[in-house]
């Protein structure tokens, strides 16, 4: 089986808006500055990837133009076994999955662009939830989100998640 690195034709940079840094930091180390018992995601790349999935889940895609941006190289995704998600997010975003994203540089760039926009959408969603309530630990925050979507998926209800840690 080929490696994740070989899925890519070119090197790319994934950009995400710096304004979401507080929620990204929170999901890594909670409210503390360095690694602690409540640390959840290891690096920014893990949070950005989770956010892109969330963007798909809530169908929220945001343009990043005009924003102050931070960058993550695709190599970082690959080294953390997350490179494939750049393609999966793109495949899931279309009603009919487009295999051409694997075929050409242009297709690949399109997948990267889609991933960035869904990640920005997901980060915006996370940021809203983060600011809505007083949160305790990253684990509880993510758990609540997962439980909310699971209930919604099971009942076929509306995509809204209440986060109440009080």
């Amino acid at each position, binding site marked *: *089986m*080929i*490696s*994740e*690195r*070989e*899925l890519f034709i070119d090197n790319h940079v994934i950009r995400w808006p710096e304004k979401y840094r507080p929620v990204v930091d929170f999901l890594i180390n909670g409210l503390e500055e360095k*690694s*602690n*018992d*409540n*640390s*959840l*995601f*290891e690096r920014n790349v*893990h949070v950005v*990837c*989770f956010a892109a*999935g*969330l963007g*798909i*889940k809530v169908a929220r895609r945001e343009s990043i133009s005009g924003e102050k941006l931070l960058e993550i190289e695709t*190599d970082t995704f690959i*080294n*953390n*076994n997350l490179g*494939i*998600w750049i*393609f*999966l997010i793109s*495949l*899931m975003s279309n009603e*009919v*999955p487009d*295999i*051409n994203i*694997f*075929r050409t540089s242009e297709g690949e760039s399109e997948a990267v662009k889609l991933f960035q926009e869904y990640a920005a959408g997901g980060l915006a969603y996370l940021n809203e939830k983060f600011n809505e309530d007083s949160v305790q630990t*990253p*684990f509880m925050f*993510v*758990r609540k*989100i*997962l439980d909310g*979507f*699971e209930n919604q*998926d099971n009942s076929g209800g509306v995509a809204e998640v209440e986060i109440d840690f009080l």
Partner: protein
Amino acid sequence: MKISNIIIENFRSYYGRHEIELSADDAKPITILIGSNGAGKTTLLNAVYWAFTGKFKGKFAQTSGVIHKDAHMEGKREATVELFIENGSEKYHLTRIYRTSDSSLHMARINDHGEYQPMSELAAKRLIEQLMPERLANWFIFEGEKIDHMELKGDEKLKREIQETFGFGTITALIGHIEVIRKNLAHQERKAIANNDVTELGIQIDATEEQIKINKATINNLKAQLTQFRAESAAASEALLRFAPSQKLQKEVTLFKQSLETTESKFRAAIRERGKYVAQNSLPKLLEQELSQLINKLTVKEDEQQLPAPFGTRLIEEIKQMKQCICGTAIHPDSPEMHRLDEMMRKASTPKIGAKIFVVRARLGGYDSTAKAFNKELESRSGDIGRYDQERNHYKEFIKAGNKEIADINEDEIKEWKRKEQTADKNIEITNRDIGHTENKLGTANEQLSKLLSEYNTKVNQATKKSTLTKDRKKVELVEEFLRIRFYEQEKEVLKILEGEISNVMLQRMTKHYSATISATDYSVKVVDIDSRSMEISEGEEIFVKFATIGAIVGMAGNRTTVGRVNWLTEPVIAPLVLDAPFSKVDDKYRADIAKNLADLSGQLIMTFDQSKLDEGLYSVLEKRIGKIYTLISRAKGNVKDSEKVFELRGKRVVLNEYGERDETRIKEFIL
């Protein structure tokens, strides 16, 4: 290695020259020295320790009074300890001389004709390092009172010392050297390959290896700090035990503290594991439905033969070049046929596309399974956390209540020790937490390195199959792998036998059906019951297990164990056990059993006893194994006082204190 004779001259309480012939007979390996308090038993142990290491330990660290005070007044400026050593068929004479200005080491080999062949100081030091390495001397020469300080719950220092006793140090050092050679070759190889991917991977490998090195160093530093904090806490705890008002409470608090530390560590590990699990698997869980839909859509595409298209690019390219189809139809530029071919080209299959889609589908399948198992996995991990949390809160409450009661005792010294203990405990907690986080980072870095190396090897294999550097690196890798496997096997074998040996002693001599398990990670010794459940044991039982562990380790190194024999890769350290007041902290019911076990397992056993400790019961157990008994007579300067200290055994009586012209220790053989 055995010590056949000790000569001690003007050393501390020993005035003039005294010689003790130790029993070095395999059938009778025990020599016993009997003396009352202050008679010079610990001095003798320290003399042996100093002769080997050149260092004084414990309360003997102060060098004032090393030369006997009367000898000093008579103008003697030297104190000497000599050891006659037998190592297999080789014989040596070791002399260490203390002077107020300096001290010196002299060593000679004694040949078959009894001639002394002096060795250089460097050769002498090397030989001593082989016979009784300084860092292991505390294992073979120790005071029974210090048995409390031995940690059975996975101390880094203990693990290192056990490894060195078994000679593992040589193998790990060798593996370390080979690892350096392999890394250097790999580094040169990366530089030699002009391939961007490989170069980039090489940089990442170097960076990850550096990260691993830093994390390992941090863990070692933290563990050293932890040992220090544990010692501070134990010292404070020990001090509190000396005060009658806090004694009982402190005993309870100490027991709960030990349990709390274990549970805390399990609790934190469980939280980190759960966090890691959620971080790694929350995305598949979040998109469970979407992933499932994507799998279905890809299956439909495959069924419709759109994934990937069943024709290859090469055929289409050839048709376009020849401008003629294989059926003979002409293909003109810009014709509908050419447009159709362009369209087909976009859907055509290449091995690369096929491989990419294969990877995507395989990973999708994996994510789908992960998502389905997520809730159950999480529930199980959260259940563990809940249980540990409940357990630790229970311990915390008891400790808090105990500490409060101790703090309420209106004695300044008790309050001060309690404060010191709590500070050390807080530091232990923080350091344990930091160790956990760094180990976590180390684990991740190791995983990443392994992934990068595997990717790197694939690339390098493709790029440089015939490279000499690659061939060399592979050879070195093979050697390294071989050594690692052999080391792993040896370690596994050793720990298994060690476990069996300790368990055997426990099963034979303890009333309960307890046995021991040893962790391969940190060499911690745990006591388990008949159903393999981890057990909390009493202080007396713990000391028994500690002696069983010491006996098993020493016995294994000397290939004297009953459970099995090890085929050693390198020579273990086989030295006599010199124990000062070994049973001062041992329950009476275990004394005979421990003594017998140590006698069976060590090649030579030298023990000092207070006159009351070698009673008829203990003597009858050891009788057949005892070669020599000496009494240390404590002579005090001045007139005779009416306070006799007597050692009596089987009707024979020796008075252990005398009065005369100076304070000194005299040695007298006790013959029944």
